[in-house]
C-alpha cells in the first residue's frame, strides 16, 4: 500500500505537451479517478505512473520512493488495460498466473491467489478457457484478476470498462468499487465517463488539454466547479450558461438578462467582486435547478421549443428572449406543448457565476 505523489509532472511527446505541470497527491488506500475528454493527458499520466512512459519533467513518488527511473516491473503495481491486453495463446489461469510466475512465486501460492481472485470475480468456471472464448465482460474480469493476484501496492485502471455494454458497465462500476474497498489498495482510475468517476472515486482529478482543472471529491466538483469548463464537462445534461449583467439596484445586486432580472443572495453578492458591478458575467445553472410551469407567471418568461420525455424525467428546451436557450429537467407529468409560453424559476441558491473573460468561478 502506498500513497502516490505527482509533483510538477510534465509529459512531452516531441514538441507536443500532453501533461503540463501536474500536481496530484493521492492518499494510501484512496480511489482516485482521473477524468477528462480524450486527449486531455489522463492516459499519459497513468502510463507515467506505470513506468510505460518517461516522465519528461517533475517527479512521481510512491510513498517515499521516487519511481521516475524504475522499470514497470520494479514499481510493484498492477494495471488493467482498456483493451484487456490478455495473452491470446494462454488460458485464463495462465494469464492470471503470469505476473506471479515472473516473480518466481510457488505454484501453491499461485493456485491460492488465483482461486481467491477467481471467486471474487466469479470466473472460476472459466479458468481453462482462452481469451478467444470469452465475452467482453469475462475478458475484463480476467484482466482484473490478473491485476488482483499480484497484490500490488497500486492499481492502475485505464478505462477498463469502456468497451462493455451499458448494463454490464453499470454492474462493473459497483463491483469495482466494492473490490477496491475490500482490498484497500490505492487505485488510480482513468476514464472519460463522468458517471464512472462520480460514482466510484473518492476524489476526482479533472483534466483538460494536459492541465489539471480541479481535484476534489465528486460533490465538490459537481457543486463547486472551479471554472466554466469543469462546470460544463461534469453533469448530465450539461449546465446552462447565460450571459447576464450584474446591476446594482438600491444596494442589491441583480442578475439582469433581457428576459429576467433576478436578485442575488447576500452571500453570493459578497462573493462577487465589487469591481464587477455593472459588468457582464456568465451565469451557470444546471437543468434540474430550474423549475418550469406552463403559462406566464412571475419568474422568467420563456417559450417551449421542444419537449423530450425520457420516462423518469422530461427535458424541455426553452427559448428565452434574445438568442439564449435553456434546458430544463422536470418531472414526467409536465405537459407543455410546442410554442407555448412558460415560466421558469431559478434555484438561486445553486447557481454559479463565472467570469465572462476567463471562465473562473466567482463561487
Amino acid at each position, binding site marked *: 500500500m502506498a500513497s502516490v505523489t505527482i509533483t510538477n509532472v510534465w509529459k512531452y511527446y516531441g514538441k507536443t505537451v500532453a501533461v503540463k505541470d501536474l500536481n496530484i497527491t493521492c492518499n494510501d488506500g484512496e480511489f482516485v479517478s482521473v477524468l477528462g475528454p480524450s486527449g486531455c493527458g489522463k492516459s499519459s499520466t497513468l502510463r507515467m505512473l*506505470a*513506468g*510505460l512512459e518517461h516522465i519528461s519533467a517533475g517527479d512521481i513518488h510512491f510513498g517515499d520512493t521516487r519511481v521516475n527511473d524504475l*522499470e*514497470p*516491473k520494479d514499481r510493484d*503495481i*498492477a*494495471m488493467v*488495460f*482498456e*483493451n*484487456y*491486453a*490478455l*495473452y*491470446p*495463446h494462454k488460458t485464463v489461469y495462465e494469464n492470471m498466473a*503470469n*505476473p506471479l510466475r*515472473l*516473480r518466481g512465486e510457488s505454484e501453491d501460492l499461485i493456485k491460492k491467489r488465483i482461486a481467491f481472485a477467481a471467486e471474487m470475480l466469479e470466473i472460476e468456471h472459466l479458468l481453462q478457457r482462452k481469451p478467444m472464448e470469452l465475452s467482453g465482460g469475462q475478458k475484463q474480469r480476467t*484482466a482484473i484478476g*490478473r491485476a488482483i493476484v*499480484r497484490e500490488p501496492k497500486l492499481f*492502475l485502471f485505464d478505462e477498463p470498462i469502456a468497451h462493455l455494454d451499458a448494463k454490464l458497465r453499470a454492474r462493473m462500476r459497483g463491483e469495482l468499487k466494492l473490490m477496491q474497498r475490500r482490498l484497500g489498495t490505492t487505485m488510480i482510475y482513468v476514464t472519460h465517463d463522468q458517471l464512472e468517476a462520480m460514482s466510484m472515486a473518492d476524489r476526482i482529478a479533472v483534466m483538460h488539454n494536459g492541465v489539471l482543472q480541479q481535484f476534489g471529491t465528486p460533490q465538490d466538483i459537481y457543486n463547486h466547479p472551479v471554472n466554466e469548463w469543469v462546470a460544463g464537462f461534469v453533469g448530465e445534461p450539461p449546465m446552462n450558461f447565460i450571459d447576464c449583467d450584474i446591476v446594482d439596484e438600491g444596494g442589491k445586486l441583480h442578475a439582469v438578462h433581457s428576459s429576467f432580472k433576478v436578485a442575488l443572495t447576500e452571500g453570493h453578492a459578497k462573493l462577487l467582486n465589487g469591481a464587477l458591478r455593472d459588468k457582464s458575467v456568465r451565469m451557470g445553472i444546471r437543468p434540474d435547478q430550474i423549475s418550469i410551469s406552463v403559462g406566464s407567471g412571475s419568474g422568467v418568461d420563456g417559450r417551449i421549443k421542444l419537449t423530450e420525455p425520457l420516462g423518469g424525467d422530461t427535458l424541455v428546451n426553452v427559448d428565452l428572449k434574445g438568442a439564449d436557450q435553456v434546458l430544463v429537467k422536470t418531472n414526467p407529468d409536465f405537459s407543455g406543448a410546442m410554442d407555448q409560453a412558460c415560466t421558469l424559476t431559478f434555484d438561486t441558491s445553486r447557481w454559479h457565476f463565472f467570469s465572462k473573460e476567463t471562465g473562473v468561478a466567482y463561487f
Partner: protein
Amino acid sequence: MASRDVVAYKTPLSRIWNIFTVVFIAFYLLWTLLPLMIMFFSSFKDLLAAFQLPPVGAFSKIGLFFDFTPTTKHYYNLFVNLGFSTYFANSIISAGGSAIISVVLGSMCAYALSRYEFRGKPDLFFWIISTRMAPVVAVLVPLYAIFRGADLIGTKAGLILAFTTFNLPFAIWILKGFFDNVPYAIEEASMVDGSTRFQAFRAILPLVAPGIGAFVILCILFAWNDFLFSSIIGSGGAKTLPPATVQLVQPQNIQWGSIMAAGVVTTLPMMFLGLLIRRYLVTGLTMGAVRE
C-alpha cells in the same frame, strides 16, 4: 463477407457460362501441369526415348510419350556420380541457414521498427526494402568483392549470408506487419506484470509464431530457387541445386534425363513446402500487401 454467397439464378446464359468455365479450367489445368508432367516422365526416360517425337500432326501417336521403359538411372547417376547429395545438402543448409538467420535478425529488427517511433523511420524502412529490390546483376560485382574480402566465396557461410541479403529485408518487411497487428498493450501488460523489455518481446513471439514459421519456409523457398548468387558466391565449395542442374548442360551433350531428374529433385520439396504454407503464400509473395 464473401461475395460468393450472392444469390445466382439459372439462365440459359449462365448455363453456357458454366460449360465455358469447365472448359477453361480444364485447359488451364493442362497448361499448368503439362510441363511438370513432361519433366517428371522425362526424368525416367533414356536419352533416346526422351528425344522421341511422333511425326508432325500425328495426334493419334501421342501415346509415344509414354512408350518407354522407365529407368531410375538418372537419379542414381545424380546422387552417386554427380554429387547431387552434396548439392542437396548445400541447398538445405544454406537455404535453411539463411532463412533462420533472416527470421531471427529480421524479427528483432521488425519488432523494434514496429514499436519504436523515431525521425526518419519511413526512410529507414524504405531503405531496408530497397535492398531487396536491387537487381542482382547490378550489385553482383561489388558484393563479390565484399564476400571475397571476407574470404566467404565458395563457402556455405558465404552463401547463407548472400541469401540473407534478400531474405532479411523481406523478413523485416513482412514481420513488421505481423508485429503491427499485435497490440502494444500486451507487452505493456507483460512489463507491468514484471517482465523485462526483452521478456516482453519474447512474450508476444508466440502470437506471431505461425507467421514466422511460414516465413521461414518462404525464405527457404526464395533461397533454394536462387541461381545467380549461388553460382557466383557459392561457386565451388557451396554449389546448390539450381546451378548444379544448369551445369549438366555440357558442351559434349546435354544430359536431359539427368537435368529433368535434377529438376524433379529441386522442385518437389519446394512444391511440398509451398503446399504447407499455402495460407501465407499470397501475403509472402506480395510482400505483405495482400492478405488472404
